[in-house]
């Protein structure tokens, strides 16, 4: 019996489900950066003349903690756009 179509279906389904699971990694930076912005607002409220320094430090911290969210996003992109081509070549 020829299971090629079934195998291709399972491979594509795996890619799609994996891409959805990969983007759960977006929760982390969302919570962390919200925390960071909240504390920055608090500090600026207490001491309005340090707004420039606090803002640039906050932007630096946000861009660094965005890293793990970007890892998940790139994994999802690879699973949607690159992995099906590879699997179809592999399975014929």
């Amino acid at each position, binding site marked *: 019996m020829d299971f090629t179509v079934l195998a291709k279906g399972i491979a594509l389904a795996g890619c799609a489900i994996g891409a959805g699971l990969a983007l759960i990694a977006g929760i982390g930076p969302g919570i962390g950066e919200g925390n960071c912005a909240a504390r920055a607002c608090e500090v600026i409220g207490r001491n309005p003349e340090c707004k420039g320094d606090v803002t640039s430090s906050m*932007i*630096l911290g946000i*861009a*660094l903690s965005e*890293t793990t969210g970007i890892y998940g*996003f*790139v994994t999802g*992109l690879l699973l949607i*756009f690159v992995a099906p081509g590879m699997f179809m070549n592999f399975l014929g």
Partner: protein
Amino acid sequence: MEVSINGARILHTFENVPLLGSVQITQTLAVSWLIMVIITGLCIWLGSGLKVTNISRKQAVAEMGYNAIVNFVRGNMGPEFDRYIPLVCTIFITSVISNLISLLGIWSPTADLMTELAWALVVFVLITYHKIKASGIVGYLRGFLDPIFILLPINVMSECFTPISMACRHFGNILSGTVISALIYAALTAASNALFGALGSSLVIAVIVTVLGLVPAVIGFRQKKKCLLIPGAVVAILGVLAILTNLGAAYPWLTLGIPAIPSLYFDWFSGCIQAFIFCTLTTLFIKQAAGD
């Protein structure tokens, strides 16, 4: 909606090169050469005609940039590391121009992971050199056994992960900007075809829409009321474009100008910030490695 997201295209392959086998010229390599030519031309232009007093505006801009980079490196690493100012400045300028060249429609070489891995490898060699210079090669190897010697694989992994994470952070941000721009462009093309296909399917509908837009526009213009003028002008412009579509000049009009708004964040802000962060991490890691 047709989206085409690819890696770097291979432009030419040289077979049977002595010692290397087959050498491929990819888009990344070709655009990197172009960027090298651009930066060299910029440096020659900015450094020509320098004077001590009565300086020109061009020289003032060049001195401002130079002072910014020198203060940045000295602020992070202290004045004894002045010999790394050219390295940090090179990485920063190359990164900024590579990220922003995608605004001109050219493939940006930083959307290829190999570019960032090369920079991260240079930084990793520098970090290792400074660690060995600070504690000797035996001290460096013993540093991996530091708290407990069971942590040896974890320490080795964390050492290797530093350059990989620097490269992947930069690459991920730029790649996601490229992909999102392609998706927005494709979605606007599909929306534009649907909208102007419906509005421009018959000339009567298009003319009615234009008139419906011109009436409040003219009234708002005469009475100086913005709340009538702006929606009326928008509907009138859509009607005119629908007439053009009916007469045969079909074009995805919605893709003109609207993609510039998300590209303000994804290309301009994200590109410049990621270059700045790569250079900040370079200076901080080298300082930390030499200061132990």
